[in-house]
């Protein structure tokens, strides 16, 4: 049965409660933190050696699609009615809009230490202690909108500039790729911050706290953000029906990216799937 991922702003009170409940249960069982660790482990920047599957690479989109699917399956084992909602940050743009409400993800971090003190993920509730981090901080942190130097969320025009590009990705297939939908959406722009922070990356910065670290999965907004990023890939495919994931073939020996990226029909680690197999999700889920 194909299930539906909804705009988080449309969830009923019961749907919110069940989504939060499933998150807390995965955290309690320890499974949640395995996802945090996996994301840390796979965040290899493109100046390092070896294969990079998750970021600064063409497979940024299929890697996160599969990552979300696995996590969503875990949520649905807890509660079969739950799916990962998406946060449309082009519409819900303020620090008090959804998903930053008491019954969803809770609000901003406090000024003194960025600690999230409201909602289900507040440290004092005892159900959301950070254990898989890149620092020793035990509480979830946010700094919505970057209070000391305010930043705005990407706009629908920013997203459109990515979705409009009919080229999926292009050499050198990394964070310096000057064109292509993938890097425009992932958001490693040229120039200096904050102008260089585009779409996906910019949202990580806007949320702040844990979301700017390699341990960004510790903030459950990670899933809502990446569901919206994933939705853009679906929109891009509808917009450009003949465009495909690139590269189709692995870079040749001697190419600087040889062995560093995942081509269309190559295995996407750590899974047994290829980017090609991840292009169409219509048999598993749809977006409302």
């Amino acid at each position, binding site marked *: 049965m194909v299930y539906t991922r909804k705009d988080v702003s449309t969830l009923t009170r019961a749907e919110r409660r069940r989504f939060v409940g499933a998150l807390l249960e995965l955290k309690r069982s320890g499974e949640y933190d395995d996802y945090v660790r996996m994301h840390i482990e796979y965040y290899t920047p493109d100046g390092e050696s070896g294969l990079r599957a998750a970021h600064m690479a063409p497979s940024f989109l299929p890697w996160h699609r*599969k990552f979300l699917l*696995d996590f969503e399956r875990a949520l649905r084992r807890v509660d079969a009615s739950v799916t990962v909602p998406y946060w449309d940050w082009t519409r819900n743009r303020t620090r008090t809009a959804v998903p930053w409400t008491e019954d969803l993800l809770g609000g901003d971090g406090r000024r003194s230490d960025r600690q999230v003190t409201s909602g289900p993920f507040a440290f004092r509730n005892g159900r959301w202690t950070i*254990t*898989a981090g890149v620092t020793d901080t035990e509480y979830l942190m946010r700094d919505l909108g970057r209070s000391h130097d305010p930043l705005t969320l990407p706009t629908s025009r920013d997203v459109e500039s990515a979705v409009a590009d009919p080229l999926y990705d292009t050499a050198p297939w990394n964070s310096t790729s000057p064109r292509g939908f993938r890097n425009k959406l992932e958001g490693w722009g040229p120039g200096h*911050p904050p102008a260089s922070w585009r779409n996906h990356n910019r949202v990580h910065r806007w949320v702040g706290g844990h979301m700017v*670290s390699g341990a960004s999965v510790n903030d459950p907004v990670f899933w809502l953000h990446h569901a919206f990023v994933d939705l853009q890939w679906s929109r891009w495919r509808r917009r450009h029906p003949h465009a495909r994931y690139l590269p189709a073939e692995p870079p040749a020996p001697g190419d600087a990216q040889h062995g560093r990226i995942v081509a269309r029909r190559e295995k996407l680690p750590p899974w047994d799937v290829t980017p090609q197999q991840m292009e169409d999700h219509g*048999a*598993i889920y749809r977006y409302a």
Partner: protein
Amino acid sequence: MTVPVNSASKPTRRRRVLWGLLATGTMATMAPAPPSPGRSAPKEARFAETYRGRRITGASHGAGPSGDPCRAMWHVTVDGHPLPLMRRADGSWMTMVDHYQSYPTPLLAARAAVDELGPTARPAAPDGNDGRMVHGGGRSERSRTPKDHVHGVHA
């Protein structure tokens, strides 16, 4: 989409590779390489400063293990705790603490990490035994079995 039944459905159960991955990339935990006679002397650089109340130090040694002089090894610490650096393709630097942005120099990356760490947080550090990442007293350590490790990439 086709998702094979036997595809790895769970993230890695072991973190042993994690710190190894960082260290391999950054050489941050390696001892300084002795200058090799007969080759051009490695360019050394270091910095030490107090930034927002935190002590930052960094030292580089001109060549990486591959002998590539462009890939300088940096050992950076914050209040004595190692802060692994990673590189971007454009030559800039980033840390795990501030991971959606990179900086032109190791010092700027270290300062940006301090901005994120605040006055007291420590970067997580390798535990010195098998390289596993620990923090907060290793509270999160749980027993893992090797078969849980599903990766073929970094292992």
